[in-house]
């Protein structure tokens, strides 16, 4: 078969794909299928590419397994071994079930992200084509500060993927189905179980205590769904329920949270009122007693529901933010559970101050404070538009010189006497007139013809791309300054060679082409020249 050194985990024969018989291989990193009698795989998917697997319902004649890829494509395998089709499928499914989650996390988030960015941004896509596809710079360099934004600033963040929270309704998603004979069936997935564990650590603890020594996994979950713990409105009945302890723990957790109090003084209802009426004063009679003794069964069940909802939401919220925040959390916990009010005084004012300041701020009444920017002050805007002209040695004149020369010119003009015999020849004169009249050679530039009328749009488009690409390269280039690490130095050199390569492979051919075709239209040339000029300046700078 295929010359592979991969570890083959499972081989299932007699599996049809596209009505062709073959063999299914589950390897360490991919799943593959080859038609019978051939020693190559026609189907091969990395596990990381697979989004999920689907199976045909039990009752169906065909026993099938479908793999849905991240790209949206899907592949269906039909297990055709008459005697053991179901068993084969189960085996494949089980194995996949174990393997897929492992790869799921590895699934290339970045690639998706890059793909999405390219699809969404046509300019970026063009840039990508111009620079990467034509191998001016490597893809890595291209993405290095594209994906950036957030990640690039801190390389550790780059690896730190965002933790996915838990759906608030994960318990609701476990829809019980009646199995037809007076029972209920709950479908649990690995995700749901993880959600339960993360939200209710007490259940996880029970699980690790009891499974598999005392209970099988199935029994454990059966009990879980039967428990009052799961059905919030039922009143706690027996104590033999292993989850009654969980409920108690939750209660304790809730209590401790309540005792801890809140950090934001603006939402602390306990300290809201300044001076409460003394007992016995006031119109409102004593609240219809909240003590449990007086509550009817219905009332206390309602109360339990409300409490559980608050608890559930708090736990879901906590599960989402548990990671990464723990150190900070602990610190604040120690400070607040201390109980010593002087300590809490010590910690409180900053939060309080900030919150109070926030509350009294009228941002729209204030003069807006934009970050101060330095205005670009162009003395000669045409120089900016046309790029720098090569520096000419200029003699600077003093004001006295200028006054002198003005006087001189005035003097000259006053004494000017046209020497009519030594003017230009008539032919030269007439050609000059032709050149200067509308339609003449020298008048073309002044005819204010817009560039978009003079050059075809594809040339313009190309020019635009080149401009953007050059801009991108320059951005990379300039981002290396100040060059204070060896890495940056290396990058500068590399970028410089990139720029040169860009000039060679892209700009020069374009320039030649333009020169060849549109010799007369010097406008577009100017632009492309100015590009070249910028590049040359940059190169000078590097040296």
């Amino acid at each position, binding site marked *: 078969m295929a010359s592979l050194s991969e570890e083959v985990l499972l081989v299932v024969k007699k599996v049809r794909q596209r009505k062709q018989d073959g063999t299914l291989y589950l390897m360490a990193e991919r799943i593959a299928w080859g038609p019978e009698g051939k020693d190559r795989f026609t189907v091969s998917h990395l596990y990381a590419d697979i989004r999920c697997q689907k199976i045909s319902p039990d009752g169906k004649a065909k026993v099938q397994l479908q793999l849905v890829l991240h790209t949206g494509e899907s592949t269906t395998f039909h297990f055709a071994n008459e005697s053991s089709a179901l068993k084969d499928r189960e085996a494949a499914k089980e194995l996949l079930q174990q393997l897929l989650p492992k790869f799921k996390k590895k699934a290339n988030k970045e690639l998706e992200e890059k793909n999405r960015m390219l699809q969404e941004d046509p300019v970026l896509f063009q840039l990508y084509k111009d620079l990467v596809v034509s191998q001016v710079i490597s893809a890595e360099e291209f993405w290095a500060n594209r994906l950036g934004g957030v990640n690039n600033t801190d390389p550790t963040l780059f690896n730190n993927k965002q933790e996915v929270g838990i759906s608030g309704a994960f318990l609701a998603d476990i829809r019980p189905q009646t199995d037809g004979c007076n029972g209920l069936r709950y479908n649990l997935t690995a995700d749901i179980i993880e959600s339960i564990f993360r939200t209710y650590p007490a259940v996880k603890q029970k699980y690790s205590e009891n499974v598999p020594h005392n209970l099988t996994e199935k029994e454990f979950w059966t009990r879980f769904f039967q428990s009052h713990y799961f059905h919030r409105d039922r009143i706690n009945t027996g104590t033999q329920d292993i989850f009654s302890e969980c409920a108690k723990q939750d209660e304790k957790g809730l209590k401790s949270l309540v005792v801890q109090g809140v950090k*934001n003084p603006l939402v602390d209802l306990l300290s809201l009122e300044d001076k409460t009426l003394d007992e016995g004063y006031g119109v*409102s009679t004593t609240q219809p007693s909240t003590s449990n003794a007086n509550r009817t069964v219905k009332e206390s069940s309602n109360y339990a529901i409300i409490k559980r909802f608050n608890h559930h939401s708090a736990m879901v919220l906590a599960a989402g933010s548990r990671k990464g925040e723990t150190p900070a959390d602990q610190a604040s916990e120690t400070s607040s559970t201390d109980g010593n009010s002087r300590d809490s005084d010590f910690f409180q*004012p900053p939060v309080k101050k900030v919150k109070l300041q926030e509350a009294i701020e009228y941002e729209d009444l204030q003069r807006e404070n934009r970050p101060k920017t330095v205005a670009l002050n162009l003395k000669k805007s045409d120089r900016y538009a046309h790029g720098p002209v090569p520096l000419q040695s200029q003699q600077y004149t003093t004001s006295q010189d200028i006054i002198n020369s003005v006087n001189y010119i005035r003097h000259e003009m006053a004494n000017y006497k046209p020497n009519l015999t030594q003017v230009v020849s008539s032919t030269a004169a007439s050609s000059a007139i032709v050149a200067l009249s509308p339609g003449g050679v020298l008048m073309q530039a002044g005819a204010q013809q817009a560039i978009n009328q003079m050059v075809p749009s594809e040339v313009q488009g190309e020019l635009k791309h080149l401009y953007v690409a050059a801009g991108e390269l320059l951005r990379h280039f300039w981002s290396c300054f100040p060059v204070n690490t060896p890495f940056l130095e290396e990058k500068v050199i590399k970028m410089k060679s990139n720029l040169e390569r860009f000039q060679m492979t892209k700009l020069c051919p374009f320039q030649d082409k333009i020169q060849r075709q549109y010799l007369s239209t010097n406008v577009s040339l100017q632009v492309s020249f100015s590009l070249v000029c910028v590049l040359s300046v940059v190169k000078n700078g590097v040296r």
Partner: protein
Amino acid sequence: MKLNIEGLLVYFPYDYIYPEQYSYMLELKRTLDAKGHGVLEMPSGTGKTISLLSLIIAYQRAFPLEVTKLIYCSRTVPEIEKVIEELRKLMEFYSKETGESNNFLALALSSRKNLCIHPEVSSLRFGKEVDGKCHSLTASYIRAQRHSNPNLPVCRFYEEFDAVGRQVPLPPGVYNLDDLKDFGRRKGWCPYYLARYSILHANIVVYSYHYLLDPKIADLVSKELAKKSVVVFDEAHNIDNVCIDSMSVNITRRTLDRCQNNVDTLQNTIHKIKETDAAKLREEYRRLVEGLKEANVARETDIYLANPVLPDEILQEAVPGTIRTAEHFVGFLRRFLEYLKSRLRVQHVVQESAPQFLKDIFDKVCIDRKPLRFCAERLQSLLRTLEIADIADFSAVTLISNFATLVSTYSQGFTIIIEPFEDRTPTIANPVLHFSCMDPSIAIKPVFQRFQSVIITSGTLSPLDIYPRILDFRPVTMASFTMTLARTCLCPLIVGRGNDQVALSSKFETREDFAVIRNYGNLLLEMSAIVPDGIVAFFTSYVYMENIVASWYEQGILENIQRNKLIFIETQDAAETSMALEKYQEACENGRGAILLSVARGKVSEGIDFVHHFGRAVIMFGVPYVYTQSRILKARLEYLRDQFQIRENDFLTFDAMRHAAQCVGRAIRGKTDYGLMIFADKRYARADKRGKLPRWIQEHINDGSLNLTVDEAVQLAKHFLRQMAQPFRQVRSTPATKGTEQVSTFVVWKGRWRHGYRCLNLAFQSQQLNNFVA
């Protein structure tokens, strides 16, 4: 910037001003000029507080002899602290602009619980405990005892303050609660007593309503405040209830039992003292014969704020002979107590007026009206004489004596209701005597009489005319300001029908109807899918919310909502609710989004703001009518009808609508904020309900949004949210002409449009100002 408000130079610490702030200041200035009272309504989030402070401080600076003090009353501790922070900002602006440090003293005053720095006392959790403990360390006779027995515990902060604190006044500045504590720690002085002492000479005092309205506290804290003060009641939409609460008394069997113990203790103490120190009691007797002359003189010379519990007449008389000696008084208390006990033994509900009660007590146990009136004063005197350490232990007997004084003083405005059991549990005997005040003007009358200007202001005071009527005063200005908006950032929708055309209403008959509950659930579900971040939903009562939550849970609606947002629910336990609130904010903050189910009239609806993403939508399920079956309410309604010609229904609707407005107003706390306001009850569409909403909400209810189905509301909401989510464009242009008319000629225009709405930037040119001043 500097403003010219009818010739008054006002420093305003922002570069721009909303037009409504300008008009607010104008009205306020007129009120102060007239030395009268005012009722001003301005939407929350339009900078009411800073406008108030800017104008009144400018007035104080310009006319230091006319207005000597600003007493700013707010409701909650965070509100008080916010006011102080705004004041700090203003003062910083003053010193920046004028270049001189001004000698204003402004401070916040709060209860001992918030100000105590004694390590043991301040660690106590409840205000009452802190007060009691503090009293046991600092009461005058305790300190006197310490002379003979130096081992008694002592509060060094109080001792230090008492020794030196009064000689040097608190240096000028702005002191928040934390600043006071810091200052106290540095100097080793008790911040609470320092603050209480300093309010007498401070220019600005910020504290809670109770310090002025609750006679028990006002008598201690505020009675010496200067007459030429301006009093501001902010967030005053509930002020009538505060007044009523401070004058009402409930007596249960438990109170009477504790009272019995108190009386026994008193008796024993008297016996003991008689053996050891009979002179003390004789001295007291002598004082009582001389009468309460001192207090009377003080009140006549206008030094004291009147105490409604201590009516004028009794000050002119001596304590009647029957209760002048300590033993007689204790015996008198016993008799009174026994009488009350017998009254609580009823089997059916009794309602009677104060004169009826007095007649009955005279017939049964021969207690005259006169000694009853002196009861409270006599008890205070006795407790002082007996050197009782922990006053808190004697709260029961104090309550009874206060009741005795009130019931014998006011023949009108109060009612007595004795209920043998709670309505809901007719089998459990739990007799209560409600002595309830029905006339809020009684408690607030001394304030109106004493202080030169009283300003009642809030975001929701509509309809304005009802407040002067129920508080019985004559305002010189009444004004309601609307909110100028660049974009209609609030979107009130009245949802009257479900998608199946079932009329939505929380009225009693359909309250249990499953169709209504389901449709309410559906509304919340749909909204949870389209509204970003936080949604707050209010129910009319706690019981109603519990029932609805239970049936939503059964119907699986809550599960579906959980797919979109996390759910948090207010409970009757304040600590639990605080936690839920914080988690709610956290969930809004981190982008998950959450729903808070809460109760109108509850703590959340009264004290917590849901700015920006903390409340993008508020849903008011039903009309929050007060529980109308209560006898106390019925008595009050009757009283309102007879005394003030306010019809029951008018008052009930007014009361319901002010709470509804409070609830929905929680979401909009500024012009950059935006939010949906969903009134889910078809009754809101009626003119009598709608008309009682504040003007700034009413304006945005158009005929198209009066009786929507859930689906229609969702469509409108989607549209609104999509529009609001657009970046807020800042538009600039010249000010509209309407603005110019309001402004006097001294104002130089630097007007701009900002955020699209009209903001006038008014500035003096110094030249012109000088001309003007000269």
